[in-house]
């Protein structure tokens, strides 16, 4: 895999759980373990949105979390990318109708990359991040 010259820094990722079942969470964390080791590409989970380039959002966005998701989105500096991990953030998935949901994610914030699956495998998540990387480069090269 090539990380092109336009990528002038490592890709830092912040993760928000907007009401998911945890299935996607553990796969995201599993992605970060030595088995897959995405840190060799500089991909790293950070503890605050202010340091992040990519926001990973899981879950169908409950009403209580909607405002918090928005806040995280606005706290992340530009250029930023939003990735949805998992079926329930994309279209509700198993939680396709409910009275406490404000989702899916792209009803709340604009989304750049969708990673389907319930939950997606770690390989799929890495592939998603790499796709995001390309998109970020496109945005930067346009400037």
């Amino acid at each position, binding site marked *: 895999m090539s990380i092109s010259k336009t990528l002038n820094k490592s890709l830092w990722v912040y*993760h928000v*759980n907007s*009401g998911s079942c*945890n*299935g996607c*969470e553990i796969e995201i964390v599993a992605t970060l373990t030595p088995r897959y080791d995405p840190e060799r590409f500089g991909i790293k989970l950070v503890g605050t949105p202010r340091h992040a380039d990519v926001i990973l959002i899981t879950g169908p966005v409950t009403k209580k979390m909607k405002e918090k998701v928005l806040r995280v989105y606005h706290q992340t500096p530009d250029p930023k990318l939003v990735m949805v991990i998992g079926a329930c953030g994309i279209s509700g998935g198993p939680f396709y109708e409910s009275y406490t949901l404000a989702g899916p994610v792209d009803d709340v914030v604009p989304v750049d990359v969708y990673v389907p699956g319930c939950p997606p495998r770690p390989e799929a998540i890495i592939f998603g991040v790499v796709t995001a990387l390309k998109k970020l480069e496109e945005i930067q090269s346009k400037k």
Partner: protein
Amino acid sequence: MATSETKTHSPIKTVIGPIHPALKEPIKFIFEIEGEKISKVDLAPGHNHRGLEWMATRRNPVQILYVAERICGICSIAHSLTFCRAIEQAAAIETPARADYVRTIFAELERIHSHLLWAGVAALELGFDTLFYKTWEVREDVMDLLEYLSGNRVNYGIMQIGGVRRDITPAQHPRIRKSLLNYTILFDELVNMFLEDSVLRMRCRDTGLLTREEALQLCTVGPTQRASGVAADVRQDNPYCAYGDLRVKAVTPDQLLDEVRGDVFDRIIVRLLEVKQSVDIIAQCLETLPDGPLLAIPKIMVLLNHLKKAEGEGIGRHEAPRGEVFHYLRLTADRESPAAWKVKASTYSNLLSWIKMLQGEQVADIPIIVASVDPCISCTDRVAVIKQGKTAVYTQEDLRRISREKTRRLRQG
């Protein structure tokens, strides 16, 4: 750090969460802090409330099964198994013995996976990165095994009402045995690492105390309850699946050390011992796996028809890795979807115990105490310190840093 500059004696309000995915109720903690001490704790759960029980009144039972699995991705066997047992009682379905055994094997694999995951998180909160990576690496092996047996890494889709969907064939036994051997070796290593390390002991001994009486009164469940000396375990008290044939005994910390204190350290010990117990249970199940069918009613359409006509109510219980999971289900003949479904996840019962454990402790101990109940991973995602009207934010990293600094201080001192 925001707290260190305060000169006033008025308590400071601190909010943790709500990004905290424990089962269906992520939780926001509101702390009042005086200096380094926590003086008051309040909880605000509900950020993850997706209305599952309500959704169920609009679906048929087989569809609900998949929602039940997704109540929590880590306890996905626990909830689907419990749901199946509840509906089996309501509709008078008897599961075949082989299915009971296969269910047991999966449930115990899930326990190993969950406890390892937890041990890793605990190590991370305390600042033992080596241990964290070690446990998570082995956990990947459990995930592989689960994938090998069920076809999926998370949300296994193995349960079906009246039995299980996939068999464990004799050809698969060697692979399982090999993994079990690995876990036994790992168990010895982990026990050494956790018990011999004096700093870890200093951090965890007498931290986050919960007495036996409090554990009983607050209705706590699982390892949290057992670490306080209540020898209750659904697998022992009210056996189901294959547990009735195996004589499982509840694990309490006095089985390894000779006292019960009900602190974080005891909770670590209980979980470690349970990993070993699970390995034993799986080995026994493999040896005595009975022959026979896997499903009581193999045809889905027949099953659905049966469930449609069924009338009655049932309860399902299972000792999930984090504690007892309970489902209540009611079927009426006039409708296909259940008339009522109540899910009680383990953290639901352990909510109040946090308040007791955290009171009077230090800020640096929040991560490990919260983690010691084993909610889900990102429970301490964000902490906001509200100080004289202004809000400063503790991130998960800040908190973890404070916790780690404490470990380092102890190491050097």
